[in-house]
């Protein structure tokens, strides 16, 4: 093909001093003006601003520009802006090309080398843009339903927001009940609202909402499709109880052949016991019991008297033969609200968790002081005594080179809350060992002052170790008090480890399932840390709550609302425009070798035997270009990434 000639305009952004402080933009503009085809070259302080865009639009009209090259930031940030500006001026948006001279140049290089690199990149872009052709956006309708994964406070809030706006919502939760971590807490900081009192009405609202389909004890196992049209497979695990028939009377639990609960109770962190047939906690939603086949005698031996069946009677809700089912749903958007995992305190051996019985995690203490907890709200040690002194160790598994480097954001505040509650309930002396006291939130610092005035002791120092006293068996916390400048050893009856927040153990598998990215720590990666905090790089998939990073309940709820709004905005658009970067076949060149057919991961390529050529289904093609690279006769091509365009870039950067 002969190289097309076009009237090209080049626009170089200063980005304040972000680019112009490093790259000689005047020299770059002069250089651009000498490139073949360039009719006009300009530089401007902020190209993305309205006056900057107007500059481009005016030139398109005045100089009859046929191509536009903008040298500025990453196309991931402003490609859409400049394409839209071109479109508004009557130029096909795909005749605009961006050159990244900020992220890839001025922010990482300096001196003449930075300007030289900008010249090479700009030359490449000017050469490639001549080959750009006008393209039409593809448009597909958006399904008016949303999948919310995870039924903690984030998922609950997002689901309710969407459902109240009239959207169909599927809420999928892998545990037998929704509620997440928040349901385990006693009070919430800094207002000391009872967590259950503010959460359970929302949980019930989810169950009762006509627009929400709630699937607990269920997991997403497959995701296909793309924004506007996801096909999701959900595995509904058998709970051996038919959800529609169970009325939540709990008589079966009473009737179980195990007279006393004797199995590890997950919801109470093992501090309480449950039976093989159980409900996680009294306010669980749905109010449907679960049978644990690992401990149920009927499942283990088949020789149980099945007194639960008898108790259920005519309701016939118990079904030992229940099988898992796979449901397939179609949704337009997905919100991930899969939450966090509390740090495993036994990973830090010198704090003695799992070794000394009176070393607890904060989550265990939440259950102990919760009125619905294993001790009915009595804060007692494992031997039943009330603690007279309690030490709270901050930053366990946070801000630590050996475990996790990040600050978990909530531990200072929940430690203050626990200090207050412990003092209120037991009158014990409470010692907080902290590195820094971090209380940046509305009414947080005031709460800290209040707790300090209540007589809680604060010792600035990281606890070195916890060990039992030889005399009375109390636990000694040893730490360097960095304000006093000396080592202190404080004996206490109870140690509470303020464990930090970690990504879920299976975060990597989950992100692969949904084709999104993780930060190196394992938190799901947002599209932009400031301007797109609930979006991901996969269109139509949004984030809410701690799966994106540690945060408290107010921030989680705010983020869940934002994710719901983003999903709603998407759904209300009605249709989505897709990048037209699909592959297509030049039938007259295609030899019918079928190399491409097996390469396509989306089965978008079919073979037409009557014509002996391959054919690309544009609706299925996602535009990766793998088939294009493999075609031996160069008969498959890709819009926006034509061979000529890439060759021109290669030649351009090396000229």
């Amino acid at each position, binding site marked *: 093909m002969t190289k097309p000639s076009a009237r090209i305009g080049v626009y170089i952004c200063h980005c304040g001093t972000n680019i112009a402080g490093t790259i000689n933009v005047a020299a770059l503009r002069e250089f651009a003006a000498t490139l073949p085809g360039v009719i006009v070259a300009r530089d401007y302080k902020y190209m993305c601003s309205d006056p900057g865009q107007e500059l481009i639009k005016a030139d398109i009209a005045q100089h009859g520009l046929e191509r536009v090259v903008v040298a500025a930031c990453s196309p991931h940030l402003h490609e859409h802006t400049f394409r839209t500006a071109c479109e508004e001026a009557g130029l096909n948006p795909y005749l605009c090309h961006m050159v*990244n001279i900020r*992220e890839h140049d001025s922010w990482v290089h300096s001196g003449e080398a930075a300007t030289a690199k900008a010249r090479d990149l700009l030359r490449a872009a000017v050469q490639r843009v001549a080959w750009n052709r006008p393209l039409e956006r593809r448009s597909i309708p958006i399904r008016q339903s949303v999948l919310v994964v995870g039924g903690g406070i984030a998922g609950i809030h997002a689901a309710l927001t969407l459902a109240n706006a009239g959207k169909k919502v599927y809420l999928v939760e892998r545990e037998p009940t929704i509620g997440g971590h928040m349901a385990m807490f006693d009070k919430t900081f800094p207002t000391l609202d009872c967590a259950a009192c503010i959460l359970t009405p929302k949980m019930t609202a989810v169950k009762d909402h006509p627009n929400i389909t709630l699937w607990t004890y269920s997991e997403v196992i497959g995701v296909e499709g793309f924004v506007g049209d996801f096909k999701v497979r959900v595995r509904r695990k058998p709970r051996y109880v038919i959800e529609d028939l169970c009325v939540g009377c709990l008589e079966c639990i009473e009737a179980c052949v195990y007279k006393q609960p004797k199995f590890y109770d997950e919801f109470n962190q093992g501090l309480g016991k449950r039976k093989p047939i159980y409900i996680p906690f009294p306010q669980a939603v749905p109010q449907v019991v679960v049978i644990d086949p690992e401990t149920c005698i009927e499942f283990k031996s088949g020789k149980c008297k099945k007194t639960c069946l008898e108790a259920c009677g005519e309701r016939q809700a118990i079904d030992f033969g229940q099988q898992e089912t796979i449901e397939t749903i179609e949704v337009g958007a997905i919100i991930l609200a899969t939450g966090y995992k509390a740090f495993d305190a036994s990973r830090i051996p010198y704090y003695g968790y799992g070794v000394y019985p009176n070393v607890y995690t904060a989550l265990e203490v939440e259950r102990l002081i919760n009125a619905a907890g294993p001790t009915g709200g009595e804060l007692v040690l494992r031997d039943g005594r009330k603690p007279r002194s309690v030490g709270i160790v901050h930053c366990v598994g946070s801000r630590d080179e050996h475990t996790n480097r990040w600050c978990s954001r909530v531990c200072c505040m929940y430690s203050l809350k626990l200090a207050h509650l412990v003092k209120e309930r037991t009158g014990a002396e409470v010692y907080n060992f902290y590195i820094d006291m971090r209380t940046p939130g509305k009414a947080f610092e005031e709460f800290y002052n209040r707790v300090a005035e209540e007589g809680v002791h604060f010792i600035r120092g990281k606890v070195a170790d916890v060990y039992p006293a030889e005399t009375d068996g109390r636990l000694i916390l040893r730490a360097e008090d960095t304000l006093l400048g000396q080592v202190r050893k404080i004996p206490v009856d109870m140690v509470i480890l303020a464990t930090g927040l970690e990504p879920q153990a299976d975060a990597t598998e989950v992100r692969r399932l949904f084709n999104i*990215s993780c930060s190196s720590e394992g938190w799901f990666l947002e599209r932009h840390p400031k301007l797109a905090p609930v979006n991901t790089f996969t269109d139509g998939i949004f984030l809410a709550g701690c799966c994106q990073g540690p945060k408290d309940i107010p921030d989680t709820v705010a983020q869940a609302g934002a994710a719901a709004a983003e999903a709603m905005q998407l759904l209300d658009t009605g249709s989505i425009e897709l990048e037209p970067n699909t592959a297509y076949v030049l039938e007259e060149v295609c030899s019918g070798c079928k190399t491409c057919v097996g390469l396509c991961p989306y089965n978008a390529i079919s073979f037409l035997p009557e014509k002996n050529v391959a054919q690309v289904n544009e609706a299925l093609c996602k535009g990766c270009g793998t088939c294009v690279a493999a075609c031996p006769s160069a008969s498959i091509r890709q819009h926006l990434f034509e061979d000529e365009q890439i060759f021109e870039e290669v030649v351009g950067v090396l000229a």
Partner: protein
Amino acid sequence: MPEATAPVGQNQTAAFEPKIVAFFCNWCTYLAADLAGTSRLRYAPNVRVVRVMCSGRVDPQFVLEAFAQGADGVLIGGCHPNDCHYQEGNYKALRRYHLLRRMLEQMGVEPERFRLEWISASEGERLRQVVNEMVEQVRALGPFRKSEQFEPAEEAVAR
């Protein structure tokens, strides 16, 4: 000319700035380079990035063309195994890479000049390391000089 084939001396390598063409996928490695930028991680300015949607789009001809046009090295960056935005384009890139690498070696191209790396969107630091390392390796090798064996391929690329 005898100078052209003579080994490159110490003095010459000190002044030599290699040119490396990089093909980065839109979803992982290009974003890693964006992240390196927002994190202000300084690295060698010798790499020129060509954005493709997927590392699977990198036609071996692009690599040959880059060497033919005077690149001293070619770097391909894609998503980690299992992480490809397009499910498996990176595996296709890997297959072609191994084949092309052998071919280039037979043509006398040192293996250090052609590299495939998996760099995810969150690995700005890794991007910096890979670029710096490759620039140093290629700098040590000296400028790329096409051997005679390369010419038939170059003609084929030129068509």
